[in-house]
C-alpha cells in the first residue's frame, strides 16, 4: 500500500536540545565528522488505494495543521512512497 511521507524539522533558528545532545555524544563514540545535528520527525501515512491529488492535498493540510507547529517547526518534505 502506498504511503505519504511527511518530514518535519525544527526551525533553523530554534535551538534543538535533542540535536545538541547528539552532537555532544557523537565525538565520544568516535564520530568526529559532523559539525551539527538536528532531530526532527518523520511521519508515514498509509493510504488504502491510490494517492489522488485530493488525498495529497489532505496530507499537506494535515502536515501544516496537526503534524507540525509552525511556530517552531517547518514541513521540509512531503512525498509518496510506493509499497
Amino acid at each position, binding site marked *: 500500500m502506498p504511503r505519504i511521507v511527511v518530514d518535519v524539522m*525544527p526551525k533553523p*533558528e*530554534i*535551538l*534543538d*536540545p*535533542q540535536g545538541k*545532545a547528539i552532537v555532544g555524544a557523537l565525538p565520544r563514540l568516535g564520530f568526529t565528522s559532523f559539525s551539527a545535528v538536528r532531530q526532527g520527525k518523520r511521519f508515514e501515512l498509509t493510504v488504502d488505494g491510490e494517492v489522488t491529488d485530493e488525498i495529497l492535498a489532505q496530507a499537506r493540510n494535515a502536515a501544516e495543521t*496537526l*503534524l507540525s*507547529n509552525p*511556530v*517552531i517547526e517547518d514541513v521540509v518534505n512531503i512525498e509518496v512512497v510506493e509499497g
Partner: protein
Amino acid sequence: MTETPLIGDLAAPAAGSALSGARIGVVTFPGTLDDRDAARAVRLAGGTAVPLWHAATELGDVDAVVIPGGFSYGDYLRAGAIARFAPLMDKIIDAAKSDAKLPVLGICNGFQILTESHLLPGSMIKNDHLKFLCRDQVLRIENNTTAWTSDYAAGQEITVPLKNQDGQFIADEKTLDALEAEGRVVFRYVGFNPNGSRRDIAGISNAAGNVVGLMPHPEHAVEAGYGPAHTGTDGLGFFTSVLNKLVGGK
C-alpha cells in the same frame, strides 16, 4: 516555637462562602492528570469547580476555565497538539477572545494547549537537559494585574511545584521583546532556570490579561503539607484572584 505544619489544616482559608457562587470549569481530556487537583484548588479557594469534558460542544454555565496539566493524548506528537482540536477548545477559544473575555488559566499541559491554540504566543520544547524534572520552584510574579494574579503583590516570590519534560518556553526575539514591553511576562523563574526557557519566562498572558499560561503548578500548592515543604499554599492566590475578580465584577 512553631510546630511542623499540620497537613490539611486550613486554619486560615483565603475565601469565604461569598465566592462559592462563582463557577470555574476544569477541563478533562483523555490523558489529563491534574484535573482533580485543579478542582480541589478551586474548592479550597472558595469557588465551585465544574467538570468539563473535552468532547462537549457547549461550554455551559462557567465564569472561568482552568486547563489543567497532564499528557493529553499522550503528548506523543507534540505537547498539547491533539487536544487543541477538541470540540470544547473551539468554545474556549471563542469565549476567551470574545468581549466577555472569559478568564482562562492553562497550567503545564494546559499552557502547551493554549500555545498550540495560538491563544498565547511562543511554544514549549523539550527541557534543555532532556529529562523530566520535578522540583519546588521559586517564581516571581511580574504582573499582578491579570485575572489570575491580582491577589499577589507585584514582584512577590512564591514557591510552587514544577514537573514536566517539555517546559522550555521559546519564541522569536521580536515576540519576546513585545511580551516584555507589554508586561505580558507574568511569571519568571528565580534562582534557577529549570529548563532553558528564554529570558527565564515561566508564564505569560494574552494582551487582555484574561488568558494566562504557566508551566509550574499552583494547584499543587494550595494545602499545607501537600505542597512544597514549609511553604505549601503559595498557589492558592491564583484561584482567589479570579474568584475575587468574578465576584467583585459581577
